[in-house]
Every structure is written in structure tokens, then in C-alpha cells.
């Protein structure tokens, strides 16, 4: 335990040192780009360091070429402008580049090769993989990512999952927010209790609720038995319904809080004026509340859709154990299982790219659609 703590501390120190070095490098490039010694000095230092650290002449030469290009860029294009914002951004950008951009590029490479459990040894020894073209992409559409469920079934189920969940989140959140927005006693206490599903650690909530759907000892079936009804095999026969129920329970509070914030920002005067004109409660809801809520609701629904589409947690925690069912899987949870239960790495990379293209297409459509409605409401 102590050694791993030391490792962590070393790591943090290493990052700090690296950031310092990066900032020094940038500072020199921003501040001294017009000095006469700048180009030769920077190329020499970088090439020398690369050759020394890498112990190879080739590396030194290529570093010299890259550094010459960078230095010329700083001399002729950047010319010392915007130095502070870029120096402030550099560490974060580098982190994002190393841990998001590079992995995504690697994923694309992976999708065109063949990495699976049988070729992983070769990869870790030689670092190269056979190129297989679009084979993995063809497999995404023709073979099952798990053992039975097909790609198209997963697409359909994902659409259903997203629509049903977000719909119920918004509907439930809207009703609760309307109730909480009324002038009654104890609103703060109600609100506190109502956000508990959101505040609980999701792993605890999902695992506990999964226990409650246990066929014999879970609350749901015990309750059904007391009412004289037959027990339901929730986890084995209706896993999708179970996951949906759990996820609806989890997601309503977030929407409720967002919508409540929106409701509270609507001035009373609108309703007073409408009441004087004789508008019914429904008309007030339709013509005052909903249009004025739209700026709050639209981003929340967009965010909710993306989160729900990408939600692995609930489905994996409910069905993820060995021998788990495939009847609740959506695209992303199937992707997770294909990669880390079935170890089909290259296939999963292609699958991931297809999924993200679907998500991208859907969000472009959604943006056009919401632009369209915007112009209608003007």
C-alpha cells in the first residue's frame, strides 16, 4: 500500500515537472521568437535532448526537423501573440489530447486491424497488427456483438430506451416541479427528499433496487404476493422493464430540479394577467409555462437524451454478471460487454465508431428539428 501511495505521489510530481517544462518551452517560444539565436538554439537543444534521451540519432534528426517547423511557425505565424491564454490552456489541452484525442485516433486504427484475445500477445510484443480493411465494420452489421442479439435489435431497443426514459423523466419531473412550485408548506423538506435518488451513489441505488426485484425476497414480489398476485420473474424474464423502472426512478429528480428552476424564473405577472383575461389553468400551462420553459427544457432534454443513450451503468449493473441476459442490452452496454466480457477489441472499436456515428447523426437531426420549431415559435 505504501509503495502505491509513493507511486501516486511520484506521478503527481512528474506531472508537475512536465507542466513546468512545457510552460518553459512555450515561454521561450512566445517571448524570444524574434531573437537571432532563437531558431538555431531551439533546434539544437530539442534535437540534443531527443537524441540523448532516446539514444538514437534518427530520433534526434526527426526531432530537429519537427522543432524547426514549430520554431518557424512561432516566428512567422504566432509572432508572440496570445501568449498568456495558450500558456494557460496548454496543460489542459495536452491532457485532453493525450487521453481523448489520441485514444480516439488509436480506436480508428484498431477498427481496421484485428486485435482479439488470440492476437494480443503478438501486439504487445511487436506493436503491430495485421490490416484487415473494412472486415470489422461488415461484422458489426452481420454478426452479433454478444452471442445472440443482433445489431438492428440493439438499435431499436436503444431508441426505445432513450425515448421512454427521457419522456418519463421529463413528464415525472414536470409534474413534481409543478407541485413543488405551488404555494404550500414544507416545500424545502419535500424537495430534499425528492432529490435523494439523484444524490445517492448510483452504484448503491442500482444494486439495492436490483435486490428489490429479486424474484423471492425483493420488495416488489413480496408486495405482489401480499396483494395476492403471482410473482414476476423481473430479472430473468423482464430485464428491460426492470432496468427502465430503475432508471426512471434515478433520473426524475434531475429533471425536476432543472424544471423547477425554470418555473421559478417565470414572473407571476404573466399568470395574473392571463387570469384577468379569463385564461383557464390549462391555457396558462399551454401558453405561458411551456413556451417560457423552453430555453431551460431544450438543453436539459438534449443532455438527458445523450446521457440516456450512453447509459451503461444501470443495464450493466443489473444484467452484467456471468450468465446475465442480453434482453436488456442497448448499443453502448453491448459495446462494453463485447470489449470487456468477450475481449473482441478490434470488433468493438468498429462497433464504437458506428455507434458514435449514429449518435452524431441523431444529434444533427435533432438540432435541425429544434431549429425548425424555434422558427415556428419565433
Amino acid at each position, binding site marked *: 500500500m505504501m509503495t502505491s501511495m509513493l507511486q*501516486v505521489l511520484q506521478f503527481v510530481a512528474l506531472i508537475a515537472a512536465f507542466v513546468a517544462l512545457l510552460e518553459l518551452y512555450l515561454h521561450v517560444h512566445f517571448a524570444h521568437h524574434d531573437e537571432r539565436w532563437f531558431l538555431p538554439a531551439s533546434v539544437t537543444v530539442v534535437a540534443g535532448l531527443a537524441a540523448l534521451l532516446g539514444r538514437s540519432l534518427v530520433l534526434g534528426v526527426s526531432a530537429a526537423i519537427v522543432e524547426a517547423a514549430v520554431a518557424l511557425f512561432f516566428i512567422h505565424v504566432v509572432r508572440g501573440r496570445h501568449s498568456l491564454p495558450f500558456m494557460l490552456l496548454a496543460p489542459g489541452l495536452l491532457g485532453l489530447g493525450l487521453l481523448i484525442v489520441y485514444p480516439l485516433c488509436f480506436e480508428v486504427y484498431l477498427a481496421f486491424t484485428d486485435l482479439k484475445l488470440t492476437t494480443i500477445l503478438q501486439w504487445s510484443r511487436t506493436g503491430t497488427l495485421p490490416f484487415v480493411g473494412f472486415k470489422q465494420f461488415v461484422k458489426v452489421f452481420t454478426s452479433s456483438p454478444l452471442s445472440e442479439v443482433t445489431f438492428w435489435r440493439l438499435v431499436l431497443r436503444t431508441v426505445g430506451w432513450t425515448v421512454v426514459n427521457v419522456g418519463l423523466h421529463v413528464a415525472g419531473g414536470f409534474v413534481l416541479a409543478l407541485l413543488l412550485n405551488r404555494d404550500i408548506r414544507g416545500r424545502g423538506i419535500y424537495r430534499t427528499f425528492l432529490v435523494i435518488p439523484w444524490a445517492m451513489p448510483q452504484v448503491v441505488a442500482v444494486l439495492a433496487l436490483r435486490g428489490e426485484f429479486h424474484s423471492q425476497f425483493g420488495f416488489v414480489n413480496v*408486495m405482489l404476493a401480499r396483494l395476492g398476485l403471482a410473482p414476476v420473474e423481473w430479472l430473468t424474464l423482464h430485464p428491460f422493464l426492470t432496468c427502465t423502472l430503475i432508471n426512471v426512478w434515478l433520473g426524475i429528480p434531475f429533471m425536476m430540479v432543472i424544471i423547477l428552476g425554470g418555473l421559478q424564473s417565470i414572473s407571476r405577472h404573466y399568470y395574473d394577467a392571463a387570469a384577468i383575461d379569463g385564461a383557464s389553468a390549462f391555457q396558462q400551462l399551454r401558453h405561458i409555462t411551456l413556451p417560457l420553459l423552453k430555453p431551460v427544457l431544450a438543453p436539459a432534454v438534449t443532455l438527458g437524451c445523450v446521457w440516456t443513450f450512453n447509459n451503461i451503468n444501470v443495464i450493466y*449493473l443489473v444484467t452484467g454478471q456471468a450468465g446475465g441476459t442480453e434482453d436488456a442490452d442497448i448499443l453502448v452496454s453491448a459495446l462494453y460487454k463485447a470489449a470487456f466480457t468477450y475481449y473482441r477489441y478490434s470488433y468493438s472499436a468498429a462497433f464504437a465508431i458506428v455507434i458514435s456515428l449514429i449518435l452524431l447523426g441523431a444529434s444533427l437531426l435533432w438540432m435541425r428539428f429544434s431549429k425548425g420549431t424555434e422558427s415556428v415559435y419565433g
Partner: protein
Amino acid sequence: MGRRLRDWATHLALWTACLICVYPLLRIIAVSLRPGDRIISTDLSLIPAGATAASYASVLGGTHFLLWLWNSLVVTCTTAFIGVCLASTAGYAFSRFKFPGSRLGLTLLLGTQMIPAAMLLLPLFLMIMKLGLTNTYLGVIIAYSVSSLPFSIWILKGYYDTIPRSLEEAALVDGTSRFGAFWRVVLPLSTPALAIAFLFNFTQAWNEYLVARVVLTDALRYTWTLGLFELQGQYLTQWGMFAAASLMVTVPVLLVFLYSSKWLISGLTLGGVKG
């Protein structure tokens, strides 16, 4: 006449909703208090007959629960620290400067939130494996460290936007550098936002399960989420221990959330609206 009836109906509806929200938590408490021979039963009472704290004792003494908590704490604190450091300067750059790519950069940051977690995890896992960092704190820390960065940058940018520029200008007149104005004036004023960003990073990493599942396979390295999954098992055999452990994790998280929710929500809306 209608008014009182309406109020009663409202209270009734809210009471029902609260009960649905709180009941699973009450059930966890009930199960955690059950005595050893009646842990698996169809009993629904909230305080079971013969209630004991035996499950708590056995989860603390008989499992690695404390070690798992410690593992989580190390990973989470390091992650949140790195995340806030990186976000604090980046957010400032986006808030105060117009530079080529500043608008595009902010949009791309939001775009990263659309990337499915499983999609990023696969190449990250392979990188971690190749570096020999599976089953180490570092592997998880690396995987976590930038995942909340885009959102933290947005929160902090939104907060910096609300700090009047005249404060920095005054500092500049007094002779500090541009960076000095950020470091000595803006950063101290932003403590609440930094705290929220830290808390956000912290809770994200603290409650994370899927990455840890892949990177950590040794039970001595587990974070508490993995340990809890193990405890629940498939057939509820350790239901009492699971419930006790759940409750011990949940209570502090709940308190922190309830305490900070006002801040967190204002941070959410600030970041969202000010775009």
C-alpha cells in the same frame, strides 16, 4: 373551497413521491439491521425484530471494505486535484481572452461529452495495459483524470465571467502581471467555484464503476464500487453486509450532496446559460 382541497391533494401527491424516493434507502437500513439468521426473508418491517449491528461489524472486520474505501479515496482525491488544477487555468483563458479557436474550443469541449464512455475506455484500457498499469492506482487515475475536465472548465469559465474585470484592471494598474492578476485576485475570489469543481470531479470519480471494473482485477486494489458489487453477488447471500456497506457509503455522500446541491445546480445553470 377548491383551494383547500387542492392543497391537500398536492400534499398527498408529494408525500407519495417522497415515499417512493426514500423507501429504497429505508429498506437498505432495514436489511442492514437484520440478525444473521433472518437476513434473507420476506419481512418488510423497517426495524426488523431482533435488530443488531452485526452486519456492520462483519463488513468492517470480515471484508476488505475499509481498504476499498481507502483505495477510492486515494484515487478520487488525486483525480479531483489534477482536474481542478488543469481546469482553473483553462477556464480563465476561455473566460478572459479572445484567441483563435476560442469559440471552437468551447464547443468541442461540449462535444466530448457526447462520446460514449465505452468508446473511450477501450483504447484507454489498451494503453494502460501496454504501460503495465493495470491493477494500480495510476491506471485508474489516468483514466479518470480528464473525464470531468470539459465540464469543470465550463463551470469555472461561467464563474470567472461573473467576476468584474475592473478588479483585475485595478491590480494591473498597481503593477502586477496579467498572470499575477489571475493568481492573486481572480483565483482567491473563485474559491466557491473551485470547491464545486473539486466536488464534481470528486463525486464523478468516487461513484465510478465501469472503468474500475476493467482496470482493477485484484480484490486488494478494488475501489468500493467494485467491492460492493462483489458483496451483493447474484443470490443475495450477503445481503446484510451489502446493505451495511451501502449505508456507510451513502450517508456521507448524501450529506455532501444536500449541502452542496444549491451550489452545484447554480454552477450547472451558470455554465449552461452563459455559453
